[in-house]
């Protein structure tokens, strides 16, 4: 185990990702202590005041403190990003592993279903669900997960297909180990290095999608998303208020780049072929 950790820490992209993401995690975890104001309430400040000592990122047109909104926004972003990526991964494992391992009709049916789901215009679907059922952060998270697992499932299946004829799997089969155990104990650990960059990419994409929904005014009204700050900034920017635009933009880019770099680093560390050097 320590050797794996050593390998991970030696990856430059992992370190870059960790440096980028740690302040975001810090903000998300300690939001209650860091944010000086309630992000969703009027703070008594002058609307659209530029950054100052009392409001370091300025205020929006309702007099809300943008710094507090940004801090709580980190919580929303990480919740949606990690939550939907984890859920998508779980579905992808349940579909992709047996599809690759058993093949035949089971594999065919599972993969055709995967192809179908991939072709659904997901953004419009999310908007439709939000309109019909009302908007909540969990609904958005769930729908993003339900439409984004197919890419992960395809990767898992392709890896399983290439692994299942290898000697160590054949040996496990000959040793009488059940198909279930082979899939989870022998095959799955060897799939991770191909899977991690796709999973972290998915986390980043989910954050962007949620921000887009909130930007259109269709987000959860009770949560302070970065997209919501940008929705206000979109109107405020015409009166020259750049601060509502700058800070959430920087944080979205930092978070998404951070996730991608972490995934890249993990993949390189887990990949037996690149770490031997």
């Amino acid at each position, binding site marked *: 185990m320590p050797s794996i950790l050593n390998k991970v820490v030696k990856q430059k992209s992992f370190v870059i990702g960790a440096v980028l993401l740690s302040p975001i995690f810090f903000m998300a975890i300690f939001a209650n202590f860091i944010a000086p104001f309630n992000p969703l309430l009027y703070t008594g400040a002058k609307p659209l005041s530029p950054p100052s000592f009392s409001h370091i990122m300025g205020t929006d047109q309702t007099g809300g403190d943008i710094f507090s909104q940004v801090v709580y926004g980190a919580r929303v972003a990480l919740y949606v990003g990690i939550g939907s990526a984890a859920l998508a991964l779980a579905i992808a494992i349940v579909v992709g592993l047996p599809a690759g391992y058993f093949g035949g009709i089971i594999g065919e049916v599972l993969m055709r279903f995967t192809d179908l789901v991939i*072709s659904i*215009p997901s953004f419009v*679907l999310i*908007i439709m669900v939000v309109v019909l059922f009302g908007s909540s952060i969990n609904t958005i998270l769930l729908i993003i997960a339900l439409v984004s697992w197919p890419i992960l499932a395809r990767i898992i299946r392709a890896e399983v297909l290439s692994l299942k004829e290898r000697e160590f799997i054949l040996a496990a089969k000959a040793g009488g180990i059940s198909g279930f155990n082979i899939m989870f104990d022998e095959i799955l650990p060897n799939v991770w290095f191909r899977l991690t960059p796709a999973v972290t990419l998915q986390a980043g994409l989910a954050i962007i999608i949620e921000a887009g929904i909130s930007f259109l005014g269709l987000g959860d009204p009770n949560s302070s998303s970065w997209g919501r700050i940008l929705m206000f900034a979109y109107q405020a920017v015409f009166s020259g208020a750049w601060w509502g*635009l700058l800070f959430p*933009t920087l944080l979205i880019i930092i978070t998404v*780049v951070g996730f*991608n770099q972490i995934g890249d680093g993990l993949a390189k560390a887990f990949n037996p072929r690149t770490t031997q050097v």
Partner: protein
Amino acid sequence: MGLYRYLVKRVVFSFAIVMLTAFISFLLIKEAPGDPAVLLGGEGATPQYLDVIRQEYGLNLPLTQQLLIYFEHLLTGNLGYSITYGQPVVTVIMERLPNTLLLVGTAFVFSIILGVILGMLAAAKPYSIRDRIISSLSLILYSTPVFVTGLILIYVFVIKVHLFPPGGMFSIGSQTNLLALSASIAYHMVLPVLALSTFFLATYTLLTRSGLIEALNMNYVTMARAKGVSERRTLTVHALRNALLPIVTVAGVQLGLIVTGAVLTENIFSWPGIGTLLIQAVEYRDFPLVTGIFIFTAISVAIANLAADIVYGIVDPRIRSEA
């Protein structure tokens, strides 16, 4: 024979996509809180009209029969009636479709051409300063949401430098002659096309770069160099051909993302396409229009995918046998 079977399979599959989206919207309307008749008619519907809807969709019949009636409506090209526009949903969508296609098509062509050029510039001297600048800029653009790019463009080119209009499709008064109208549309299109292109531009740049770098290490490229083909020709003809295949594949997969980008870009720049129509429909709670746009985009994506599949099937014989 192989190609024919492949084509039939793809057509059946496209049809299945449309059926699945129709099934999803049926399920959502049934499961959503509230009266299904209102969800099928729209919030502005009168009680008399709601009765008509209940009759038309057989809302008092068993669920399976309702589903069949719903499918029958779709198969005859009936996506419902929009109360806010006083027209069938299909008519409302068709009026906006050319505007969306113009925006998306231009952005698509622009990002592919520029992306391949930038990727080639980067791959010609891998790990040089030029390559590093192109690659890292692409990575940042790749992680920037379309709507953020759009907002930045508005701040810089509309508010700071008064170079472009903040939105719309043409100036009032330019409709009188065709030349003035085209010029005005082109002028209004610059920022939305740029905003929509950035993400795809980054993808194509990175794909071309990695594909070319891989191809440049292959034996057939060494062979080309050995027999005296110029470096430029090796890059632009020999290596590029193989590097372009993954771009074609990814371009097909990304159709769904283009829909997302178009919805956001149109709304930022008030471009009168289907994306702005969707958000207007949401604001008016015109449910049949929202559902109609969902099914319509699914059909468009399915058709575009089918077209892409047919092209690959003809270009690359390996794909035929796989399917």
